């Protein structure tokens, strides 16, 4: 196990280097750059801009800037935001809480609902419920998230007035209940796509497991149907889902970008979008590296969990 972990960690380190190079080079290739916004500013002369460039190290070749950035990053210095000079890590930490709240709740909803729908669809294959779940999943997958967001706001905020249309809390309130109230709509919208994906995979995994020989063995042993379902079928069907959960982490991050924008949720997705707009490269690179780490960690955790749960890997 430790051998496996060490191997994966080395792989992950290599992967992170590759991601950082690609990200840095792409940002470097974008025309304009952080100072282009000042190009038309009458208050700044060309010499001023040149001086700023020098200060920010932007006049150096791309590879030198990359090495400089990477060297500092290795030493824990993620740089400062070009917008207001706040350290990148502080900026990320400030927005991370909001995203985690949204991501966490929507993931819980997606996994719980998706698993339940998947199990029910598989055990009642070709029933009305199964067809409804299939059609529902197709609808959820084909319509973009922002549309659901807008419809949700229109129905529940504008027409019914039950839920707030955006933001994470009401200024001046900020109680737990208030946070929850604000969380309902965005987390439901964000979870929709994932419920759809998760339930489809769960259904397939269940059908695979139901047709396994050991299920027939359990029946031949006189085990009750309910226990066969929960112990033998669901137990084996959940294995591939753990890996899927690891793989789905990044898509939850990107899903959050759109949802956060629609619901003016002050999370990482919004931060990334805004930072790109301002060409705030240190923050963009910071978020990029942070997401890469999250994705790699997610996969690693999924693999470790699978290895712990599956005796064939744990004891092999």
């Amino acid at each position: 196990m430790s051998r496996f972990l060490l191997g994966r960690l080395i792989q992950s380190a290599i992967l992170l280097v590759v991601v950082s190079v690609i990200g840095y080079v792409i940002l470097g290739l974008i025309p304009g750059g952080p100072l282009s916004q000042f190009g038309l500013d009458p208050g700044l002369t060309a010499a001023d801009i040149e001086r700023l460039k020098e200060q920010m190290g932007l006049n150096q070749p791309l590879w030198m800037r990359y090495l400089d950035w990477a060297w500092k990053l290795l030493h824990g210095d993620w740089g400062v935001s070009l917008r207001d000079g706040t350290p990148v890590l502080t900026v990320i930490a400030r927005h991370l809480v909001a995203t985690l709240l949204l991501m966490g709740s929507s993931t819980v909803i997606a996994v719980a609902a998706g698993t339940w729908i998947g199990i029910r669809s598989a055990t009642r294959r070709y029933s009305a419920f199964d067809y409804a779940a299939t059609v529902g999943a197709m609808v959820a997958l084909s319509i973009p998230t922002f549309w659901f967001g807008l419809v949700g706001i229109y129905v529940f905020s504008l027409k019914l007035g039950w839920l707030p249309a955006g933001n994470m809390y009401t200024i001046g309130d900020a109680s737990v209940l208030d946070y929850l109230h604000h969380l309902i709509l965005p987390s439901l919208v964000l979870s929709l796509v994932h419920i759809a994906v998760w339930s489809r995979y769960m259904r397939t995994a269940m059908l695979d497991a139901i047709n396994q020989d050991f299920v027939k063995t359990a029946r031949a042993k006189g085990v009750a149907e309910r226990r066969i379902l929960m112990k033998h079928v669901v137990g084996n069907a959940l294995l591939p889902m753990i890996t899927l959960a690891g793989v789905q982490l990044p898509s939850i991050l990107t899903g959050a970008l759109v949802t956060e924008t629609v619901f003016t949720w002050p999370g990482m997705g919004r931060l990334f979008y805004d930072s790109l707009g301002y060409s705030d490269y240190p923050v963009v690179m910071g978020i990029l590296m942070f997401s890469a780490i999250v994705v790699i960690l997610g996969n690693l955790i999924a693999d470790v969990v699978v290895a712990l749960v599956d005796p064939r890997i744990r004891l092999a």
Partner: protein
Amino acid sequence: MPRSVRSSDSTSVGTDGQAALSVRGLEIGLPAGMERANAVTGISFDLLKGKILCIIGESGSGKSVTANAIMGLLPKAISVRAGEIRLGDAEIVGMPDEALRSLRGRAVSMIFQDPLSALNPLMTVGAQVDEVMAAHDVGTRATRRSRSLELLTEVGLPEPAQMLHRYPFQLSGGQRQRVMIAMALALEPTVLLADEPTTALDVTTQAQILKLIREIQRRKGMSIVFVTHDFGVVAEIADHVVVMEKGHIVEQGTAEQVLKSPQAPYTRRLIAAVPHLTATDRVPIEVARREPVLVCEGLMKTYGGGRSLLDKVLPGKVLPGMFLGQKKSVRAVDDVSFSLGAGRTLGIVGESGSGKSTVGRLLTRLLDSDGGRILFEGRDVATLSEAEFRPLRPKIQMIFQDPFASLNPRSTIGTSLTVGPVAHGTPYAKAAEEARALLAHVGLDAGAFDRYPHEFSGGQRQRIGIARALMFKPKVLVADEAVSALDVSIQAQILALLDRIQRETGVSMIFITHDLRVASQICDEIAVMQKGRIVELGPPSQIFLDPQSAYTRELVAAIPGE
């Protein structure tokens, strides 16, 4: 429930109180659109107390469906249309689900063909044995545990206390089947159903499991329905035999009667088709060429054990203890040497893991060898690059085991046959013409050219596989378990076809099989492999009459029904 008891057959209808299980006029329907309306029609038989009843038949005969019906385990689409299945005083047909569940595992239990897939990979052996008893509310956790230990000991598993905590993947095939048997015995059922329980096992393991089943049956006076396709197994174990063909019982009686003086023409054909050990050597085929076509010298192949990326980055010494878990390396092929003459057949026989298939893959360069030479017509092909070997590929062709998986389901037979020669430069029209001729030659009609694999039976597909290999006019055919997936009657036909082709074309053949009986039918020489090495090499007469190695003797002795 309509009843249609037929009294025309059966030895003991209704009168004999000794039946542990009686089936009367059983009719099991298939969904519309299947090849026949009923899986089984009007079958009646009795399983006498303390006896073993073998149901034998080829694939599609309805033997497994019958066993599943007795367990009440038929898939939803298949249902009992008429007849009765009496287990003691209970009627299985039409019994409510909950009552059936209470019988299963307690009054009647079942073991299956593939003991790996039949065990839950995520549960320990102990938990799975315990589950049978727990499902029927028998005993407490502690008493069930001691009973599990007792059962594992009874079926001859080593270190039963540790075995309780093992997972199925940690056990050998034979051990897994012993676990299945232990589970089936847990509640001392009156009837045990065994559905091809030794088919997936090696011949020596099969012999052990058959012996175990026989012993336990005698000790406990159990009644067993044993479903099989193998007359050898029937001869080993059966008291009574039911022969099934296409859903009907064509003959039943004592093992003695059915094996020694079969009445039904189908039984006679089936028994005649069973391959037997032939200790007489084959008459060699006349060929012009005297020097061998293929010579192997000290062939080696090791799997695994290679240094991983991690070892290369960080040499082993740096990392203490736990990190060092060296990958296990397996010598799959260890110093294998033989020579194959023109028009001759060399059998490579061994159990699973003996390395016999690896030899086949090395010869066809589907795998690269680690050492040794492969001389094809005097030229060492083992070290040739892929590009250099490519022109020689047509000369060494392979016939695969699974006639279902080895043909592309989306290509017509014509496409599958011509794509190779066309890739090697034959004009399509010429290749197509040859393909049609070959299809006729292997016993298929010319229309086969435009049809798809699913339209053919297993035997027909294997004929197609042979035709495909012959398209290249090869010098050597490597047949890897080419008849193992086929019913015996089909097996006999394919063996005859291979023999005919060899006599007509003078092609040499490497015939890889786990079945000594089959090998003895078609091989001039047989190499017996064990753990990567050839332990004995000689003509069938030597292998079977005067085996030199202990392992060969063991293999020959384990052959069922000889």
